[in-house]
């Protein structure tokens, strides 16, 4: 169990101040921080599980629930807000039937509204994090964001077929 993070543990378990790094690598490996993963990290590092939970819930990056194959990181930074990000979020929510933080029933998409992706001149912006890496889409409209999602969905369907 937790063989995927064994190299991380070997490198960091005994190094003070490495908790966040360990959590990041664990989330990278499994997509989220499961309860048993937290207990395992506690056992390996000697940091109490309660404290690990405290750190994991403090930072927005960490997730305690499984996520979809594609994470739709929708930017709601100031420039995006001014340029209509609220409408884009509505369109995504309606199109997929999920709210911020939720995952579609087929496990394909998770909507993650983020504070700022730093691509403000292309506002409104969304970064899609998938198995192949990140891709950023700018100058979104409701139609475009729906098309982006449908394109990913269609690609997944043809993969299965």
């Amino acid at each position, binding site marked *: 169990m937790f063989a995927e993070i064994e190299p991380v543990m070997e490198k960091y378990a005994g190094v*003070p*101040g*490495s*908790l*966040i*790094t360990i*959590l*990041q690598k664990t989330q990278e490996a499994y997509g989220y921080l499961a309860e048993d993963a937290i207990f395992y990290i506690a056992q390996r590092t000697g940091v109490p599980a309660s404290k690990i939970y*405290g*750190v994991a819930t*403090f*930072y*927005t*990056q*960490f997730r305690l629930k499984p996520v979809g194959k594609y994470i739709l990181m929708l930017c*709601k*930074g*100031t*420039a995006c*807000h*001014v*340029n209509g990000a609220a*409408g884009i979020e*509505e369109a995504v929510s309606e199109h997929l039937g999920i709210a911020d933080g939720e995952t579609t029933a087929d496990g394909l998409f998770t909507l993650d509204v*983020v*504070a*700022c*992706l*730093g*691509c*403000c*001149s*292309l*506002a409104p*912006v969304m970064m899609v994090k998938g198995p192949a890496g*990140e891709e*950023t*889409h*700018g100058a979104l409209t*409701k139609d475009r964001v729906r098309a982006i999602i449908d394109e990913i969905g269609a690609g997944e369907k043809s993969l299965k077929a």
Partner: protein
Amino acid sequence: MRIVVGEGSCGVASGAKKTEAALAALLAGRGGGIALEKAGCVGNCYLEPIVDVYADDGSLSARYVHATEDRAADILEGAADDLLISGEDAAFLTQQERIVLRNAGLINPEKIEEYIAAGGYEALKKALTQMTPEGVIEEIKASGLRGRGGAGFPTWFKWDAARNADAGGGAKYMVCNADEGDPGAFMDRSVLEGDPHAVLEGMAIGGYAIGAREGVIYVRAEYPLAIVRLETAIAQAEEKGVLGEDIFGSGFGFSIRIKAGAGAFVCGEETALIASLEGERGMPRLKPPFPAQKGFWKQPTNINNVETFANVPFVIREGGAAFAAFGTEKSKGTKVFALAGKIKKGGLVEVPMGLPLKDVIYGIGGGIKNDRAFKAVQMGGPSGGCIPAALADTPVDYESITQTGAIVGSGGMIVMDEDTCMVDMARYFLDFTRKESCGKCNYCRIGTKRMLEILERITAGKGEDGDIEKLEELAVKIKDGSLCGLGQTAPNPVLTTIRYFRNEYEDHIFKKKCTAHYCKALIRYEITDACKGCTLCAKNCPVDAIAGKVKEKHEIDQGLCIKCGKCEDNCKFGAVVRD
């Protein structure tokens, strides 16, 4: 001949990688003679993807904008004259004064040789071989450089305090704050992506000045490209010997490592950042002791922002006086701004301190998108405020901007037009600070929540007489009762909007009107005579609130309307308006 594709995050998002791949495929079939390179963002984000062509003598022979992959062949054939940058767009850059962005978009950030060829690491060599640490601090003092992260604290003073601090035989640390958490700011991202070595060099010089041998860059996890470029830059610097042991034979050694942040705005505050570096919840600590005395692992620590470090090599190489030649009496040098929002030409702008706001917005930024009326500019993000159009003559320097109630901050400059509701903007920022409050201080934790509730009520059309006064009272108490900068500045967006746009608050509360036609609860959708009776609006209305015959004007039943805006989105004739 050399072809350079701009590949900052904005370029990549606009398809720069596809353009590069298309160019590479075409060049592969052609034989040698043409080198294909990449660079960071030159700053004209609104024109991405950008492809530069350099002649053999190194001069820029052509700059193509909106250079998408389907035009790659045209660019190589010289048949893309329609994409050549216009004189007006070129002026976006020529009106700037570039110190921090001196290399951005010009050199390949993944090749240390190009940084060195542009004079890189000369300043580090000069500092280590010709100057004492005290001499370095003197030079920084002469330059007048102040912290570019927001507070504008004199850099030399912090370095001097860290230099004089007793490390008790232990280590001192040089930390770079690259946790650019202000929503709407992307200066640091561009510097890290476009010229990472400038930051490394600045840190090494700073390390020498304060007596630190170890540097840490605390960078946002949301900036994956910046992290990759920094990792590459550090590895190359170590290989070249400009980081590591005995740099330039001086006996001084300095190493740098990266620590990825995990998403917490409060970690921009020094003591919270240190707590986060130590693997804890990023909650601010009491000062004193200051980080210069007891910081990372309780050792003397100096923290500067990315842009501050990127200025340092220039100051050391050219001298403090050369830097101080720019700017105003108290605010020296240049400042990089991230110009975005309702602006025609959004991107990175570096100007001498003291330039009037309107020169940035109209001169460089080309004015307001779609020629709408300029209402305000937001500076300093959640810690700053909204400066109204009437104050567009305000010089951009620390003192003048602070006088307006906003702050220079890290450099986010979000332009707003007549369609932006200022009460909603205040609500937006309070929603942000309420979420990002670490919870340590009651006033910040509960106070921001109460302010947000009031603002939500006002924008929902349920504002009451006395709400403005309550907001003002809470604002003062939150400022007084908070330990760190987050709480102390969180009310600023509310206070500045009340100060300059009190009428909008009053319209919301007493007239139940949102003059910007933004707040849903306070608007009505109506169909004008421009309606052609195409029926699209009625077909898309989820509650069947629109009635009308084909080719006749349609009507909205206000009793049924849920104000979702679908009719407006779908109308091809602009016949649906908000009142």
